[in-house]
């Protein structure tokens, strides 16, 4: 009965969605306002207005800075929720890495990970710093740093990796995305512009392009660091329990 009912609801929802989709303008229709006003403006003037060669970064960080700031806050809130439910791994509580898995990690994998991690981290730094001229940016780079630490943690264990990125380093950096974003936005106010416009009417005109570019890079770095730390902290919070049980067992 439940199955039939849920199937019915889902089918009804699907029909409704399809109906709405059918009444939307066709994808890529050149007559819609998006195509006639927004896209040409972005494509034609993004470079001179935002001083970033990658239009997408210009759109994300500059035109739609508020959106991105909200997203960054959401990511931070996700971490806060995870930590509220699971709690942080406790400092000093884990005295040693207890390997409970039937397969302790192998020498080959360990050596390979040792060699890979510096390159992965450098690649993510490249992704973050080049966000304004090539695909990539803070979110992507942060995810790659997080991924490299996840590889490291699965191979070497929570003890080793939380020793390398201790909690007292992670905790202040977790909010860096939100803080840097807000500070850069506020600096725009100080410079005589609007919040998050990156444009400083009070500054000298010749300084303007470099200023915008570097502020964008600064925001990217902040997002990257913050995102990476959030991911790492979530992972540590989720692994933590097992390690503690392992210690007492």
């Amino acid at each position, binding site marked *: 009965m439940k199955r039939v009912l849920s199937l019915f609801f889902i089918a009804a929802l699907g029909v409704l969605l399809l109906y709405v989709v059918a009444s939307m303008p066709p994808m890529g229709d050149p007559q819609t306002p998006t195509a006639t006003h927004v896209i040409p403006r972005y494509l034609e003037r993004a470079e001179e207005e935002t001083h970033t060669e990658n239009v*997408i*970064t210009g759109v994300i960080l500059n035109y739609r800075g508020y959106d991105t700031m909200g997203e960054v806050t959401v990511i931070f809130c996700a971490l806060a929720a995870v930590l509220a439910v699971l709690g942080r791994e406790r400092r000093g509580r884990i005295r040693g890495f207890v390997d409970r898995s039937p397969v302790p990690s192998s020498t080959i994998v360990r050596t390979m990970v040792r060699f890979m991690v510096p390159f992965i981290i450098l690649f993510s730094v490249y*992704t973050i710093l080049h966000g304004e001229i090539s*695909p*990539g*940016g803070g*979110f*992507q780079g942060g*995810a*790659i740093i*997080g*991924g490299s630490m*996840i590889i490291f943690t*699965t191979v070497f264990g929570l003890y080793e990796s939380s020793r390398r990125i201790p909690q007292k380093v992670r905790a202040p950096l977790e909010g860096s995305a939100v803080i840097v974003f807000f500070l850069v936005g506020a600096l725009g106010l100080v410079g005589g512009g609007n919040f998050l416009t990156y444009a400083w009417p009070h500054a000298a005109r010749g300084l303007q392009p470099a200023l915008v570019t570097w502020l964008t890079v600064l925001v990217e770095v902040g997002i990257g660091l913050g995102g990476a730390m959030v*991911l790492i902290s*979530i*992972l540590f919070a*989720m*692994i933590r*329990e*097992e390690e503690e049980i392992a210690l007492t067992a």
Partner: protein
Amino acid sequence: METALNLTFIVLLVATALMAVWARDLLAAVIIFSVYSLIMALMWQRLQAPDLALTEAAVGAGVTTVLFVVTVFKTRRREEEE
């Protein structure tokens, strides 16, 4: 040719999504879901959104898979029979 490729991707996407939902073994579901993410990343690349493709590959296929695996091992792995 282009349409055929796109169609293949879309069919694969739907297939992996359904498989992930229907899998009885949660670990298998997680792995299938990471395959879904990879195909999605390819799809983003085809739609000329390399930024999204990078994010999808790093977050969807990398980070969330590991987080899901950790969660699966903390809970029961198999769905109980009705």
